[in-house]
């Protein structure tokens, strides 16, 4: 006995209903098929956009990964080179860099500050050599040194 079994009367009714024919649709068949073909062509065009975008993204990610790996290798090599580097065995040490001194008025604050920094004390140039003779110059035209213990020059200052 079938799971889905109707009584005799219902089976007769079922057979009777099957004879009823629904109203034919007024949809234009040829126009529908034409429209469907047109839309499926458009769908075909769009169908490849996502796979193409995916492939392009994968390629870009791969290239970035390879370049990152190469860069990492170079960095490790440089780190290794720096780790094995010994400054004492450098065959040709380069000359120490000389401080760059810009020309300034000899009696200016900048020139005096530089003089103190470079020579450790204030050097005053004789008159006519590096500029006008200032009030802190020595009487025998020698460059004089300003020291903290020099009372005469301190008083002049």
């Amino acid at each position, binding site marked *: 006995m079938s*799971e889905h079994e109707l009584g005799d009367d219902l089976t007769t*009714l*079922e057979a*009777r209903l099957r004879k009823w024919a629904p*109203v*034919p649709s007024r*949809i234009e*068949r040829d126009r*529908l*098929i034409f429209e469907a073909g047109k839309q499926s062509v458009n769908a075909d065009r769009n169908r490849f956009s996502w796979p193409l975008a995916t492939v392009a993204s994968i390629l870009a990610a791969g290239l970035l990964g390879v370049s990152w790996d190469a860069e990492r290798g170079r960095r490790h090599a440089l780190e290794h080179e720096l780790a094995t580097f010994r400054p004492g065995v450098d065959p040709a040490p380069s000359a120490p860099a000389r401080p760059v001194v810009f020309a300034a008025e000899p009696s200016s604050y900048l020139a005096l500050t530089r003089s103190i920094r470079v020579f450790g004390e204030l050097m005053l140039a004789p008159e006519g050599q590096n500029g006008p003779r200032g009030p802190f110059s020595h009487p025998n035209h020698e460059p004089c040194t300003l020291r903290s213990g020099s009372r005469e020059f301190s008083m002049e200052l």
Partner: protein
Amino acid sequence: MIGPERLGAIFDAHAANLVLFARQWCDGTTAEDVVQEAFLSLAKQSEAPVEVAAWLHRAVRNGAVSAFRGKTRRQRREGAVAVGEACFARTDDQIDAREATRLLEGLPPENREVIVTRTWGGLSFDQIGRLQGCSTATAFRRYREGLALLQERMGRPCPNTNSATT
């Protein structure tokens, strides 16, 4: 991809039944629009569905229910009343098309849907169950109840005819 010949064959086999199916929720013109949209969606599928009839019924059902919701809102707003049309072109000698439509429309929606999809759509109870979101046994029960109701009402004289003769 479904070729035009196959699409034409599917259209010939199912279009009228699908319009009848969609008319449970909407009027004739809207039902035809819904069916047309379902066929266009079918043509856009990269591969034809395994169960084409069931797929089309589901697409039509979704479209018709959406249209029904929109129509109900519109009718509520405009106060319009739908005019009944005959759903059948040919019936038997015991009943005319309009009466058959009236009887079918008088059934509870769930029973009517099972009868339409089973009798004219040719779906199995398993497919109907999936369409309605119920078990196969429930779909069959609804079918049997619907047929019983239909038989009972077909046995009864039409109330309009009765009142006209008396």
